[in-house]
Structures are given as structure tokens and as C-alpha cells.
């Protein structure tokens, strides 16, 4: 063999070997790329959470960014979280309600694991300092009965979320029941059915002037006007005070009724669907939230952190003693009743104990609603007005509720009404709504003006939680204008919120004007109208 040939051969062997190494490396690179080089292959991770955790979202987002994953958070009320947990098609990777109670009740298939409290916050009354002073609450041990007496004599009214929709409302309500029943170990069916308890809890709840389905929104409502008191988490009341002080207003004094304390423990749990990578993401997130640095940051946001129920490192500038906050004091919360008693207590709240609501539904039957719009509208109203169906969502009409329905197009077409406790009237109302067909133009202002006028003249408005619910799919193009509504609203001088449900091509601008005027909220029904109706019903 010549030298050249040998050289050629050796070169070709070299090239061949080198080529195969390169190829192998390329294959490996491709495999590596396809399987994802980062530690986790998880791209998206979703959490369903109570609204009070919204303040902590930046902490979660920072973690997500560092890990290179997308974490989405959907905020829902506690009852919604419980109902979703019961559903086998649960669509989230983690759950973060205000209280472990909702997981115990909802997680019947026992899919939730690693459930660990991230922080705690007791539910308290936040009362304008001067009012608390006048009522003699400053520095005193206050019992539920002290509050009851001041409510009875008209000295105190307060805002509270719905006990059947939101954990802060449910906690306060259960605390009231325990105190009024004479502080039993746990509440029993017999106690719940006592006539005296009924009378007292109804009186207590009659002190509510505005309600909502969300603790976070209640705070915004409180700040938007000049209210006197609000039941909420200590953490949210601290946030409220910070905002009040920033705008030069009087802060709230926090009253923790000693005989009806309930704690929110904000447990974060993983919903196990057998994805080990997601579970790892969850565990990393949980560890991050419980790390010393993050716990300190959370404590700075007015949440109680630290183990053994002791606020280990609280900042006196956040947990201010002049606001009535004593983080070092041992809190002895009530013990939750068993499932049967609990469900009955919530049912009684919805149907009998809560302050009755007077609700005017202004429903758009203009021509553009024809087809899918009308179908969804009718389905939504059928759900809300059918006590059996609405009880699934704990939204059934109460026995003293009153419901007015104003179908409209370019004018108010009809005026229908029904008493919440009359099943025949409710059935007739459902039929009317079902049989009406859409047609004509749109005037959203006339039915709203008609609605608030009815609230003013039909009844003693102080005995009800009043509201108008306007549902529309178009912009107002006929009849009255926003100015007319503004005039009428200011003229009547009542605190009647006009909640708006947006559908189809509704004008967000027009609806925003209305909710800003009346201190209410717009619900987006474009994706799911029935869901939007359900949400808004939790606010009244």
C-alpha cells in the first residue's frame, strides 16, 4: 500500500469516526432539546385561590419567572372552590382557599395533598375609630352580644360578605352563631333551630348595609365611600387602614369578638393527577412561600406568619396596637360543626337568617339578544329563580326576599315580581321570562331608573339589601341618557348598587359609568352568561 493510499484511508477512517461522533452529538442535542434541558418540563401551572391572596400574586409571579414557568391564578369565592373540588373535571394544579374547611368539604375524592397553611389571619370587625370609641370598644374585651345590642339599637351597621359565597362572611356568621348559642363545644342541629337564636341572628345580620361575594372587593367598596364598619380578615383590614391613612382618612379599630373568633389559615394544597413534575413545581413553590425571607415579606403585608400560631416576627408598624391589633395574644377559635350542621347553618343563612334582599333584574330583550343570547339569559334566570337548582350554589332565594324583573328593549316592556318564599310566584316568573321573545332597540337607563325608584317607594329600604342587576348586550341608543340616571340616583339619595352584566357588544364605557356612580361592579358575561349571573347573585 502506498503512503498516499494509507494516508487517505486513515483520513477517511478518521472522518468517518469523527462524523459519527458529531452525528451522535447532534442526535443527543436534539433529544436533549426535545425533552427540555431545564430541570422541569412543566410549562404551565394553575392555582385556584381566594381573592384575599391577590395581594401576594407578585411573590408567586417572581417565583414563576425565576423557574421559567407560567403560573396562572384564578380567584374564586370559597364556595366556588369547594364546588369545583367536588367536580371530577377539576382543572387546576393547586388550590389555595382561605380555610382548609373548604378542602375538607369539597375534596371528597381525596386528591389534595401537601396541604399546608402559608399564613393565618383572624376575621374581625373593623370599626371607624370614633365610632368604636363612642361605643366603648377601645381596649375592651368585646363579645358578640355587645355588638348585637349596638346593632339592635341602631348604633352600628356594617358590611360583610355573603356567608354562603365567601369565607370571611361564613367565618363571621359561624362565630355569631356560636356566641348566640351560648358557646357550645360545637353547634348542634337543635341549637340552630332554636327560635331565640333565629331572632337574634336575624337582628345581628340586619345590621349589614352592603354585602358582596368577595372579601377583596368589599375592601374596595369600603374605600370608595364613607362606611362605618366592615367584617373582614385582619390582613384586609390592615390594608384598608393603610389606604385610609394614605388619603388622610380615619382608620378602623379592630374588634375581635372573644367568643366567636375564626381564623383563616390559607392552606395551599396540590391537586394530584399523577404528574410528578408538576408535583415538584408545587413543592418548590410551597417551600419558597414558607422560606424565611418570603414569610417575612408576607408578614409585612399584614398576614400572621410563624409557627405555633405565634406571630414570630411582626412589624409593629404594620400590626399597629392603636388599631386594636395584638398579635401576641392567644386566639381560641371556635371549632367547626360537623358537615351536616354546617350545611344546615349555611342553608338557613341563605333562606332565612340573612338580611332579605330586594333585587331588581333589568334584562335586555332587544333584538340583538335573539338566538344564543336569549337562550343563555333564560337559562341563567331559570337557575337563579329555581330554589332547587340554585341551592347547588347556595344562592336560593330567601323567604323574605323580593324579586322584580324588568324586561326592556328601547323601553321597559313589563314589570313582573315574586316573593322569594312563594314557589308558585317564582315558577310563574320563570315562565314569563322563558316565554318573552327579544325585539327592538336598547335603552339601558330607563329600566335602571325604574328599578331604583321602585326600591325607594315599594318598601322600607332599610330592611333589605337592595340592588339592581342590569344585564345588557348592546350600547344604549335610544330613550334616556346617563345624565338622567345620575340625576335620579342623586335625587333619591339611596345606596343602591347597580351591578352590570356585560354581554355581546355591550359598551364597557357605559357600564363603567353606572357602576362608578352607584359603587357597584361590572361582571363579564361574554364567555359565560350563566356564570356571571351566578357571581352577581352572590353580591346581594
Amino acid at each position, binding site marked *: 500500500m502506498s503512503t498516499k493510499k494509507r494516508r487517505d*484511508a*486513515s483520513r477517511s*477512517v*478518521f472522518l468517518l*469516526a*469523527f462524523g*459519527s*461522533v458529531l452525528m*451522535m*452529538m447532534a442526535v*443527543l442535542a436534539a*433529544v*436533549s432539546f426535545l*425533552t427540555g434541558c431545564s430541570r422541569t418540563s412543566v410549562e404551565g401551572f394553575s392555582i385556584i385561590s381566594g381573592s384575599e391572596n391577590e395581594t401576594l400574586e407578585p411573590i408567586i409571579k417572581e417565583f414563576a419567572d425565576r423557574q421559567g414557568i407560567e403560573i396562572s391564578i384564578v380567584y374564586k369565592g370559597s364556595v366556588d372552590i369547594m364546588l369545583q373540588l367536588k367536580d371530577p373535571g377539576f382543572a387546576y394544579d393547586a388550590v389555595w382557599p382561605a380555610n*382548609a*374547611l373548604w378542602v*375538607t368539604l369539597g375534596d371528597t375524592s*381525596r386528591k389534595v395533598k401537601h*396541604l*399546608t*397553611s402559608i399564613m*393565618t389571619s383572624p376575621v374581625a370587625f373593623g370599626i371607624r375609630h370614633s365610632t368604636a370609641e363612642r361605643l366603648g370598644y377601645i381596649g375592651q374585651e368585646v363579645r358578640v352580644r355587645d355588638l348585637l345590642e349596638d346593632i339592635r339599637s341602631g348604633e352600628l351597621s356594617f358590611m360583610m360578605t355573603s356567608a354562603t359565597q365567601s369565607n370571611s362572611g361564613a367565618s363571621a356568621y359561624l362565630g355569631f352563631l356560636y356566641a348566640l348559642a351560648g*358557646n357550645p*363545644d*360545637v*353547634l348542634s342541629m337543635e341549637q340552630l333551630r332554636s327560635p331565640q337564636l333565629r331572632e337574634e341572628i336575624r337582628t345581628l345580620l340586619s345590621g349589614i348595609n352592603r354585602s358582596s361575594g368577595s372579601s377583596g372587593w368589599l375592601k374596595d367598596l369600603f374605600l370608595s365611600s364613607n362606611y362605618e364598619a366592615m367584617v373582614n380578615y385582619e390582613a384586609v383590614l390592615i390594608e384598608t387602614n393603610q389606604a385610609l391613612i394614605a388619603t388622610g382618612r380615619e382608620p378602623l379599630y379592630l374588634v375581635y369578638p*372573644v*367568643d366567636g*373568633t375564626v*381564623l383563616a*389559615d390559607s392552606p395551599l394544597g396540590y391537586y394530584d393527577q399523577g404528574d410528578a413534575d408538576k408535583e415538584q413545581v408545587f413543592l418548590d413553590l410551597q417551600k419558597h412561600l*414558607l*422560606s*424565611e425571607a418570603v414569610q417575612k415579606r408576607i408578614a409585612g403585608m399584614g398576614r400572621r406568619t*410563624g*409557627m*405555633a*400560631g*405565634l406571630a*414570630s416576627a411582626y412589624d409593629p408598624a404594620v400590626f399597629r396596637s392603636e388599631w386594636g391589633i395584638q398579635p401576641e395574644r*392567644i*386566639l*381560641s*377559635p371556635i*371549632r*367547626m*360543626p*360537623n*358537615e351536616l*350542621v*354546617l350545611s344546615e347553618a349555611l342553608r338557613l343563612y341563605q333562606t332565612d337568617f340573612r338580611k332579605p334582599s330586594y333585587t331588581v333584574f333589568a334584562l335586555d330583550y332587544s333584538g340583538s339578544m335573539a338566538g344564543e343570547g336569549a337562550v343563555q339569559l333564560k337559562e341563567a334566570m331559570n337557575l337563579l329563580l329555581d330554589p332547587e337548582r340554585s341551592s347547588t350554589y347556595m344562592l336560593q332565594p330567601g323567604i323574605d326576599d323580593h324579586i322584580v324583573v324588568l324586561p326592556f328593549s328601547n323601553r321597559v316592556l313589563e314589570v313582573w315580581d315574586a316573593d322569594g318564599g312563594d314557589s308558585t310566584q317564582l315558577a310563574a316568573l320563570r315562565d314569563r321570562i322563558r316565554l318573552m321573545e327579544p325585539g327592538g332597540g336598547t335603552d339601558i337607563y330607563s329600566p335602571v331608573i325604574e328599578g331604583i325608584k321602585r326600591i325607594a317607594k315599594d318598601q322600607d329600604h332599610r330592611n333589605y339589601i337592595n340592588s339592581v342587576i342590569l344585564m345588557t348586550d348592546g350600547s344604549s341608543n335610544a330613550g334616556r341618557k346617563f345624565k338622567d340616571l345620575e340625576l335620579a340616583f342623586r335625587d333619591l339619595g339611596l345606596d343602591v348598587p347597580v351591578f352590570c352584566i356585560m354581554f355581546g357588544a355591550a359598551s364597557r364605557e357605559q357600564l363603567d359609568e353606572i357602576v362608578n356612580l352607584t359603587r357597584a361592579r361590572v361582571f363579564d358575561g361574554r364567555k359565560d352568561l350563566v356564570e356571571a349571573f351566578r357571581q352577581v347573585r352572590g353580591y346581594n
Partner: protein
Amino acid sequence: MKKKLLGILILVAIVAFALSFRFLFPSSGGTAGQPDIFGRSTDTVSGLIGSEKANFLENPETKELLRKTGGLQVAYQRAGSIEMIGMDHVGKDFLWPSSQVSLELYKLRGGTGQSTIIFNSPIVIYSWDVVVDALVAGGYAENRNGVYYIVRFRELIEHTLDGTTWNSIGLPQLYGRFSIISTDPNKSNSGAQFAGLLANMLAGEVATEKQIDTVSPQVREFFDSLGLMEHSTGTLFERYITQGVGSYPLIVGYENGLIEFARQNPDIWPKVKDRMRILYPLPTVWSSHPLIALNEKGNRLIEVLTTQKFQELAWKEHGFRSGVPGTLNDPIGLGIAGIARDIEQVMPMPSPVIMEKLLLTIAGN
């Protein structure tokens, strides 16, 4: 020359391949069904377990040791200890409940196969410094060489039923009536064991057929007074740790819960260890962890788990006392205060038939 070159290149390629293989698929103690790096395959052994053992089986050391010493890998599903006996056992090699009652039920229903108690853990009461100090001052509990025992257990149980307040126990800072919080006996094994222990205490001996009708209404009254109960021992323990003495002055748990918690939460442990207290009731009951082998693979698992190495690991990292006679469980090496060297005065649980009756009564039937 070219042969040498070729050889070197092939060698480089193999090393590169092996390295990148390791890089791509890092070994985490053997992935399901995959051969280890030397080509030996591991056998997967499947079964149902009481959730108390999940942390032990998830421990990387356990996985590694199982693979190395037994060529095994465990695939498990959690299930209630009683529930698992009645479940479908197709494709399963073993059952590993958390109570002796489950094993007896299994045998009652005609189940055969080898069974061995792998671990034990006594039912204990967890509490806090201030509460235990008050119990000691009241003569209900005693500190014997650094270990707390409830010496007047029956009286304490009676106090949960007779309306005694925390105030009269010497704890005015706690609101309401004296109580011991347990998990739901119909959902969780520690709750069921505690129900059995209560029945025994109220009967004055291991509750018999004759006595159960008298004592079970009282046991039911006890659990009724707890209201909504947790479904899992771990969740109750977690809430006790985070919420503290105000919400959870006394809770029922397994002894191993504390040791496992201390090992797995090195950041939290130092913050709570001086306040937390473990109380051993006199008498108590064992939560036994018998492994029931359904076939030969199950037998192999028993063989491996009863070896010294596993027993040591389970004690040191997870607080399980050995089920193998003659094995010492020395608390000194643990570095956790208040753990008893030996468990004295252990009562047997009532029989499965009695337990079934008791649990039905508690459920309200």
C-alpha cells in the same frame, strides 16, 4: 496506527454517550422498569399502603436501598387501612395497612399469605409547653426523666365529657371546654385507634362484646363534641404545628409523626421544638404496620424491609419503631427531646367485630 486511532475514537464516543446518557436521564434511584447502569433490572412490587408510610417509601435512601439490596422498586397507592382490605387486589403484590385490626379483618375474610409487622408506632398526644405544665401541676401528667406521661388518662377522658373548662384545668388563656382533638375515626386510622383506646379506657379493660353497647354512646359523644374532624393524621398534625396552642391545645397523633416532622423540616423544627410536647398516655395502643404479602414478590418485600438497614432508616428518619423482635430503638441518637426509650403499658385494641360496631355508632348509625 489507524486501528489505534479508531479504537480511541470509539472509546471517546462511548464515554461521551454514557456521560450524556447520565446527563439526560439522571439516576434518581432507578426509574420505573429501567435497568440500572450495570444493566440489572429492578422488579416493581405493587401494593396498597396506609398514607403514614408514603414519606418512608418516597425517601431516596429507601428507594436506593430497596434497589440495591432487593432489586425492588415499590409502586404504591394510598388507601384507608380498613378500606384496602375490601378493595380489588388484582395486580397487587402486597397490602400494608396501619393497624393490626386490618390484618385480622383480612384473615377473617379468608385472606391467606404471609404477614409480618414491619413497624410499630404508639398513639400519643401532642401538646404545648403551657398546656403540659398545667396538666403536670394538676397531677394529670408526670415528667419521668424528661418524658411526659399522662398518668390519670381516664380522668382526662372523663373531663372531655363532663363539661370541664380549660380555665378549671389551669389554663384561663384558652377559651371554652377541655378537649382532645382527633381525626375522624371513620376516615383515618389514628382516629379509629383513639376510638378503640377510649372504649378500652371507659370499659376499664379491653372492651368486650358485653361492654361495647354501654361505652360506645360515650365514645360517640366524645367525637360529636369535636365537630368537623380532619380526614388525615398528617393534616391534623400540620394544623397543630402552624396554628398552635389556641386552636390545637391537645391532638391525637402517632409518635413517629414528630420524628418524621423534625427530620423533614429542619428549618421549622428549631422554631417550635421548645414549645411542642409529646405526651405518652398510660396506657396506649400500638399502631402496627403489618405487611401482608399476596404473592412471592410480596414475600420478597417483607424479607427486605425486615433487615437491619431498613429498620434503622425507618427509626432514624421516620420514627417508626421496629416490628422485628430484638431491635433496639434508641431515642438518644435522634436528638429529639421527650421521646420514650420503651413504650410501656400497651393495651391491645378491641377485636375487629367490636371496632366495626364502635365505628358505626360514631358515624351515627
